[in-house]
């Protein structure tokens, strides 16, 4: 990795619900015609995958792409609290980030790289906008209902040995997943997600990344394969980095990051 690479943390959309972003300036040796927006997952998945996505941004910048990582409203360093989050707000946040990336990079062409719910939100934003050049969907949440069930299962598993909350400690207005409180309205939005119902093509080039550790029952590719004219699938041997690890380590799957960089380098050569 280039030691002189520059990372600029900043806030944008200052007048209304400021968002935190981190801009990775591209290596000047190989200028590209496309900026890359990284759409992160949320909740504990955001915390667990932050390190890997930061490394991904650095590698893409090294390959000549200007890159913006950012936190949605109520997440990470951005303003607001998770209780106030909504899918609609986050889709708007992605559009605000596209504007910011174009302003900083001076490039119009944008590729979105999304992980888990970030991939889903990127898909929804791209469907609304119709101006996204290419997309990488890494383990996207294709069906919200299944995703929510997975989260509840993990919450139960992780807190198996904890004292049960007394009834008067439970909140009627929130659902809690591993320390992140979400509103019932937000959970209803999540459960409604179904990428299979997006009828139109949303981008020119699409890379679908699947971890080989994902169960075969989870055939999310079938629901998103129609979203672009040119679709490439890759199934890689890599851990599900968004899940908590036994020793608290944060995983960086080099083979997946390399796949994203090489695919983008080829598409936007």
């Amino acid at each position, binding site marked *: 990795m280039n030691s002189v690479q520059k990372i600029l*943390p*900043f*806030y944008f959309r200052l007048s209304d619900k400021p968002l935190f972003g981190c801009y990775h300036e591209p290596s000047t040796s190989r200028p590209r015609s496309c900026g890359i927006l990284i759409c992160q997952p949320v909740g504990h998945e955001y915390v667990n995958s932050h390190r890997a996505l930061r490394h991904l941004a650095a590698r893409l910048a090294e390959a000549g792409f200007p890159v913006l990582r950012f936190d949605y409203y109520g997440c990470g360093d951005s303003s607001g609290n998770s209780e106030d989050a909504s899918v609609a707000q986050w889709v708007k946040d992605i559009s605000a980030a596209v504007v910011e990336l174009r302003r900083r990079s001076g490039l119009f062409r944008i590729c979105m790289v999304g992980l888990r719910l970030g991939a889903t939100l990127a898909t929804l934003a791209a469907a609304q906008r119709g101006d996204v050049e290419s997309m990488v969907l890494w383990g996207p949440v294709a069906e919200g209902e299944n995703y929510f069930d997975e989260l509840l299962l993990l919450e139960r598993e992780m807190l198996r040995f904890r004292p049960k909350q007394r009834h008067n400690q439970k909140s009627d207005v929130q659902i809690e997943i591993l320390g992140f409180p979400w509103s019932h309205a937000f959970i209803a939005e999540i459960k409604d997600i179904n990428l299979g119902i997006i009828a139109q093509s949303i981008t020119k080039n699409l890379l679908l990344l699947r971890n080989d550790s994902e169960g075969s029952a989870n055939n999310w590719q079938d629901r998103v394969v129609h979203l672009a004219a040119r679709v490439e699938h890759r199934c890689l041997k890599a851990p599900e980095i968004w899940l908590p690890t036994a020793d608290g380590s944060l995983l960086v799957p080099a083979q997946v990051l390399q796949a994203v960089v090489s695919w983008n380098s080829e598409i936007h050569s």
Partner: protein
Amino acid sequence: MTEEAVLFGARQSLAGIVTEPVIAGDARVTKAVILLNAGIVHRVGPGRIYVKIARELATMGFVVLRFDFSGIGDSVVRHDHLGFDRSSVAEAQEAMEFLHATKGIEHFLFLGGCSGALASFETASCDPRVMGAVLINFQTADSQNEETSPDLPTRNAAHYYWKYALFDSKSWRNLLTGETDYRQVIRVLWFELERRLKLKKREQRSATHFEGRLQSLAARGVQVIFVCSDGDPRLRDLREAGGRALKQLCASGAVVLDIIRGADHTFSSVGDQKRLLQVVRQRINAMHRHAATRLAVATYSDETSSCQFLQPSSAAQAGTNTAQRGDL
């Protein structure tokens, strides 16, 4: 309250967020808290707890800086091969230099979880600008060694047996009906027995290095608050490492040990986070009052840095790069 993204340090390579109250006119904030990374989780903390703590403290009138040590989160890796035990203290000092340069603040409180608690303790031990530290699930040298030791699963199993299985009817049923792995139980019990014997021997010797450092901090008037989850094995490690000194200092009020019942290492439920926030709010307020009284009566001419391993050049220039400020 405002939040501002900053880059600071000698190489402008440490990324952080400054959270501060909005103050009218020319008045300036004079009290600051610096939050140090909990393990390798970036500056938002597990369950975003550092964001909540920073915002809460800003409403109480503190400037709060939460930043990433080099190689964690958005901060660039160091290339000087300095070990984390030293670089973490050097960078905590750079954070103080930065707040001094930009806000004029001279004295600081620290807060950190896990390895961030240890870095806070080390910084407080060697830098007279630190007036107090809140150490959450403090990682003693023993915990640190055990976390990289192959015995870790056995140690965790011993904690689980003692904390949960002993009081769980299902575990007893499994034990009595032969559904338990007896070899594993014997291995864990033997490990625990050996550990306790070693501890007994150590107790008979003179006070540990850690006990001495606790006493030294107390003698300097530095407030030390340990906040521990009772579901975390590090609480036991702390009591063992602190020995008699910890008991005596707690009894005299020079050191405080707050235990949060039912909480785990990362405060992974909202209820635990709320109780942690409440403790932090109370303790930081009390520490600030104590520090203000101490500063009012003390002269620091005789206080010199007792930092043994930092190079003078490492606590380097501070400065700010970027950023825009977001009114929240």
